[in-house]
């Protein structure tokens, strides 16, 4: 059926869809290149993480003392000479902290990368391909899930007795299973969505569907599993050092805690021995979590906060926008637009008022 009368062309010949105002030259949409950094959470997280990476690189050079060097000042509280105090052997704690940063960061990030790659490959393959692939890969990740990871790491690390990289690889190869399971579940739900079905019907190649349709939807999960694995790897490595497994030759924060514990720093009230190392670990975890929140909002448009959310209301309070209590910016009944009872045109002017005949 045709609807000739309501067609725009017939009602106003030759003018088409004239209802829209002249398309204003679009205000050049500013490319918000640094949108991710503009997010306060991501910016804070990245700044803290940047500091850690910086000290992981330059730590050994800026450390004021050799972390192993012993001195006469035993178990001294923080002073001008030793900013974070000394150990029972007179070693400088600040130097130990700075030198130890590298090992922690290398192990954490390397293990995170290894585990994330493994979990994406296993999880997405199992979820998307299904069938035998799914059975085999799911069984594999289930096996890795029930292996007590820390004990495996202890056994392998103490047997291999290698450096940081070995520890990182061991953690990476044991910590991927949880991420793989989550990714598999999400992929299973995504592969039945209409947009994936449509691209399959269009004849897109499987790799392309996975890379361009499925993976962008998994970014938040991948990022969170990466951050989670990094935190797990850092704590695992520190635990290993704390219980005395791992390389004795290199310093890391777990080593500091190990000595603090074995010398009963707590009962000696030597807080400077373990508090800085503990805080360093806590802040690293905080930074990674903040980055994770930032990534969540960045990749998911629905979570993205619309810029400013705090507004000043008519009562003078500053409130956060929330559903159900829409802020009232101005409570006066004054009109906002200039509607007038009489048109502002010159009645004596040359333009006569031309009413088009009303076609009833």
């Amino acid at each position: 059926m045709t609807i000739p009368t309501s067609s725009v062309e017939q009602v106003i010949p030759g003018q088409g869809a004239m209802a829209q105002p002249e398309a204003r030259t679009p205000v050049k949409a500013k490319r918000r290149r640094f949108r991710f950094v503009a997010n306060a959470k991501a910016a804070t997280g990245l700044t803290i993480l940047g500091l850690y990476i910086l000290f992981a690189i330059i730590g050994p050079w800026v450390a004021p003392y050799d972390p192993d060097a012993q001195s006469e000042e035993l178990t001294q509280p923080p002073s001008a000479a030793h900013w974070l105090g000394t150990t029972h052997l007179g070693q400088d704690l600040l130097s130990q902290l700075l030198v130890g940063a590298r090992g922690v960061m290398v192990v954490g990030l390397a293990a995170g990368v290894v585990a994330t790659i493994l979990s994406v490959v296993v999880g997405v393959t199992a979820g998307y391909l299904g069938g035998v692939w799914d059975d085999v890969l799911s069984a594999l990740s289930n096996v890795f899930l029930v292996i007590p990871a820390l004990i495996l790491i202890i056994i392998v690390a103490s047997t291999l007795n290698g450096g940081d990289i070995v520890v990182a690889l061991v953690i990476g190869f044991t910590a991927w299973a949880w991420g793989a399971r989550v990714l598999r579940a999400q992929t299973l739900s995504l592969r039945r969505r209409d947009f994936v079905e449509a691209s399959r019907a269009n004849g897109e190649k499987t790799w392309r569907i996975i890379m361009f349709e499925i993976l962008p939807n998994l970014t938040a999960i991948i990022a969170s599993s990466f951050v989670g694995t990094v935190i797990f790897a850092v704590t695992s490595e520190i635990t290993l050092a704390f219980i005395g497994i791992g390389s004795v030759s290199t310093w890391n924060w777990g080593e500091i805690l190990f000595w603090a514990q074995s010398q009963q720093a707590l009962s000696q009230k030597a807080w400077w021995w373990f508090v800085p190392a503990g805080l360093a670990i806590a802040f690293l975890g905080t930074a990674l979590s903040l980055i994770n929140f930032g990534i969540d909002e960045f990749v998911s448009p629905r979570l993205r906060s619309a810029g400013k959310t705090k507004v000043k209301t008519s009562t003078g309070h500053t409130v956060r926008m929330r559903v159900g209590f829409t802020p009232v910016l101005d409570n006066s009944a004054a009109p906002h637009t200039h509607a007038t009872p009489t048109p502002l045109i010159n009645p004596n002017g040359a333009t006569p008022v031309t009413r088009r005949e009303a076609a009833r």
Partner: protein
Amino acid sequence: MSDRVVQTAPSGAVRGNASSAKRQPVLEIRNLNVDYGLGDMAVHAVRDVNLTLHRGEVLGLAGESGSGKSTLAYGLLRLLAPPGVVSGGEVIYHPEQGEPYDVLALSDRELRNFRWAETAIVFQGAMNSLNPVHKISTQLNDVLAAHEPKMSAHTRKARCREMLRLVGISADRMDAYPHQLSGGMRQRVMIGMALILQPQVVIMDEPTTALDVVMQRQILGQLIDLRERLGFSVIFITHDLSLLVEFSNTIAIMYGGRIVEEAPASALYRDPLHPYSAGLLGSFPALRGARRELTGIPGSPPDLKGMPTGCSFHPRCPKVFDPCAGNIPVLGRPDTPDGSTRSVACWLHPVKEPIG
């Protein structure tokens, strides 16, 4: 029951006119402005709306998609999700007893008490608003428990039972779960839920859009019935102008965030003053009278980000003339014989006395 709609509606409209001398306002909206976003990024979705709802009347709010109908309704109750903000105006509520007060100036706690007890809302697609894991009696009870904690459990139960009966659901359905009811029944439960605290004003945002016409008729008939019994006022939002003509007292037409015409339903139907109202009325067939060709409204609704200057309807208006493009017309009483009962914002009908 199905005949009742036809019978009561015109008489209701007539009575609204006859008793216009002693109409009492229950909700007065003065220059309400609602924006989405802040500062320069703001989109002005509702601009300088002046509207008065009278006690016991049905005010119909019609307009195209995106004309600001729902935003207006949610804005006046401060129910908009971020980034919506009320950027100006007053909403004066007249309680049955006591002094009128401004809803927009209420504190959060006062607002919580005000909602539902004084003004209730039935949402778009309300039948999906019921929680599927609770019995409808539990959900009705919840409202009473929250707003009238002193009421005894027995009284609450009796009240729920009565409310269900009022909306035409037998009381033995009290313990049903939402999935055991039909769409129309769920909708009626929602309407009953909105009415259970006996509010003065009920806002209905397209309550019948998802239902078939038979069910629409049934629910609207019941609504009219309930309104006569309980005496609340209704703001009824819909695309369906023909529906409004049938059962509302006053109709307000919105376009581009403004009220462009407000008139008694019969007057608007017989003699629309604004070309946009005429266009809306011309786009559905009349039940009686000579056959006429349906005319649509050319073009599409305006982009709220780049509103046309002057009257926002002028690029689509078949009767556009000189002042339209440069001047925004004010909503006011036109110079027609029935001008004192209606208002319009159009340069074709110069306004003597602006309202609001």
